[in-house]
């Protein structure tokens, strides 16, 4: 049984920072498709359309019949660890601080054998295991063999901690703690074992219900943060940037207007100012700070952007909001590309309508702020990149995958 994770010691300030390193990240085009599924939380392998053979590792033609008609489908992952080895040495810089490392071969009933990291709670081979696909620090798909049933401190396994961004014992910045989602995030993160939460507060003279909780909670520190103001972002980054392990950018400006039904661009500008430029200001001031300390034992690990499912396809009656979120999505893809060199995971969250004051006339189902907060924490625990929390988001995401053009027209009616 693995040792429960202990609260990490403070960093010894006279020792140099451990520079971030990454596992080898070169993959074939086919392997990247496997990573794309894992990024959305699915374990998929190629199934041959002609003979049914499952392929591993991913490839361009079937190993049995040479057909090129390979289809990505989810697999269950239950199988048997048939052999294992303990890696003591590696010339890869990344693995040097991870050895000794348990690696093994897992046999699935579908007649394939896969190479996997082995979770510390797995008994020695041979033993039944559950294979789970994860993204490693390079953002590539790797497999972890888990014990057949959950064990008490499972998430504390050091390989899983490498692959995920579990908030436990980590320090988190929530960029807008005043909103309903922000307040729910603060609570959910602390319930999940976060060491502390910095609660970003803009315009402190506007104090909504629940504000007192933020001020009084012993593990929450209220900090001034206004994403519309570069100086405010810089000031906060210079004060806590070198300590933030997880940054959750949930700040948003949300109004309900189309484009032609209201004169002027000021509201649209205000949305862009927070939803788009705000993210950019955060990236410029917090990005370098997080990247610099992604190699530490307890390290900067993740950056979450709360976008909207309407970033994928515009909801015309919230046209300017949709546009600002689409812009933020594009920016976030760039952020992911820039952060991935340091192994920082960028998680994009695409909720449907959140049950808050700006969706009063939107009929249910709406996503409760607490449910959104839970989804975000779970995404960090699972180590995925993109989540679509709630029924509306799931529905629209599926439609978008099937036919983005048809979805565009569907949204005219909503």
């Amino acid at each position, binding site marked *: 049984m693995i040792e429960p994770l202990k609260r990490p010691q403070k960093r010894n300030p006279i020792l140099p920072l451990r520079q971030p390193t990454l596992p080898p990240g070169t993959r074939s085009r086919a392997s990247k498709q496997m990573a794309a599924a894992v990024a959305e939380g699915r374990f998929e392998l190629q199934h041959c359309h002609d003979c049914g053979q499952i392929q591993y590792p991913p490839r361009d033609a079937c190993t049995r019949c040479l057909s090129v008609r390979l289809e990505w489908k989810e697999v269950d992952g239950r199988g048997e660890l048939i052999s294992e080895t303990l890696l003591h040495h590696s010339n890869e810089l990344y693995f040097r601080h991870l050895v000794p490392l348990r690696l093994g071969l897992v046999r699935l009933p579908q007649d394939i054998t896969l190479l996997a990291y082995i979770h510390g709670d797995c008994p020695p081979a041979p033993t039944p295991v559950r294979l789970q696909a994860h993204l490693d620090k390079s953002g590539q798909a790797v497999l972890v063999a888990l014990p057949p049933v959950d064990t008490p401190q499972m998430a504390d396994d050091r390989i899983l901690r490498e692959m995920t961004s579990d908030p436990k014992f980590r320090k988190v910045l929530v960029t807008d703690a005043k909103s309903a989602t922000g307040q729910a995030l603060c609570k959910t993160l602390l319930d999940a074992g976060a060491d502390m939460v910095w609660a970003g507060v803009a315009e402190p*003279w506007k104090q909504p219900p629940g504000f007192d909780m933020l001020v009084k909670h012993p593990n929450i520190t209220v900090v001034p943060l*206004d994403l519309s*103001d*570069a100086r405010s972002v810089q000031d906060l980054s210079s004060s806590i940037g070198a300590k933030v392990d997880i940054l959750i950018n949930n700040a948003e400006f949300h109004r309900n207007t189309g484009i032609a039904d209201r004169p002027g661009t000021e509201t649209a500008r205000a949305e862009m100012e927070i939803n788009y430029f705000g993210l950019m200001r955060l990236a410029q001031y917090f990005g370098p700070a997080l990247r610099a300390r992604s190699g530490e034992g307890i390290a900067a690990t993740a950056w979450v952007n709360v976008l909207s499912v309407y970033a994928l396809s515009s909801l015309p009656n919230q046209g300017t909001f949709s546009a600002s979120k689409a812009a933020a999505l594009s920016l976030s893809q760039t952020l992911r590309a820039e952060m991935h060199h340091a192994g920082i995971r960028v998680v994009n969250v695409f909720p449907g309508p959140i049950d808050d004051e700006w969706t009063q006339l939107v009929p249910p189902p709406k996503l409760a702020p607490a449910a959104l907060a839970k989804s975000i924490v779970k995404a960090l625990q699972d180590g995925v990149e993109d989540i679509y929390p709630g029924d509306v988001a799931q529905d629209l995401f599926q439609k978008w995958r099937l036919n983005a053009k048809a979805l565009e027209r569907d949204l005219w009616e909503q």
Partner: protein
Amino acid sequence: MSTPETPTDVLRKLTAALATERLRVVDLSQTLNNRFPQIVLPPEFDQCAPFRMEEISHYDERGPAWYWNNISFGEHTGTHFDAPIHWITGRDLPNNALDSLPVQGFVAPACVIDCSTEAKNDADFLLTADRLKEWELEHGRIPAGSWLLMRTDWSKRTDPVAYQNFDIAGQHSPGPDLSAVEFLVFERQVIGFGSETIGTDAGQAANFRPPYPCHSIMHGNGRLGLQCLCNLDRLPATGSVVIAAPLKIINGSGSPVRAIALV
């Protein structure tokens, strides 16, 4: 028979008095900075932009030998000037916008009424016509064409939360009531009203009958506004001269202003 003083004579005396500091210049403006709060309207309305500053270059690769910024703000940000066109009541008046207002009014005498004790005891303190008449008993009649500046020491609230002073009923800050505004506009012909708070009206003025009396009646009669002033405690009750020249913005309704006073 002595020859009358020419404008040059007057100005020579003025500059001599400034040089010897017999006349002093008092800064009545708050610093435009990112933390200074702007007026808050209910969220369904579009909002005035706060002051923001983004660096263009800072002796770096964006411009090796020069430092400069792009700044942005609403017309009613920081210490600022209100023109009559700001309010719907003043929309049809002639010369009601920043580019057409007569510049003569940008230099005007000021009367300062000290309400700091009342405002300290009651954030919702309202200045009345009776209180103004009481002030006149001591300091003389408010001259036509002068500013009436309401000193409350509100500008000493350096914490933005205390400056805004919101609770669930909205903002609480002192200002004039209807009687005071009518007295100043119709019986004393002031050029305008100036305050240390975020507006010339009291924090609760949305609930007055009529709402926003100072904005509505001052601007409806071609008078001006100054708000977010500071250092009013350094002005005498009468006899100072305020210089407050707004930016010359086409059809502008207001502008941040570097207001100063000669005392």
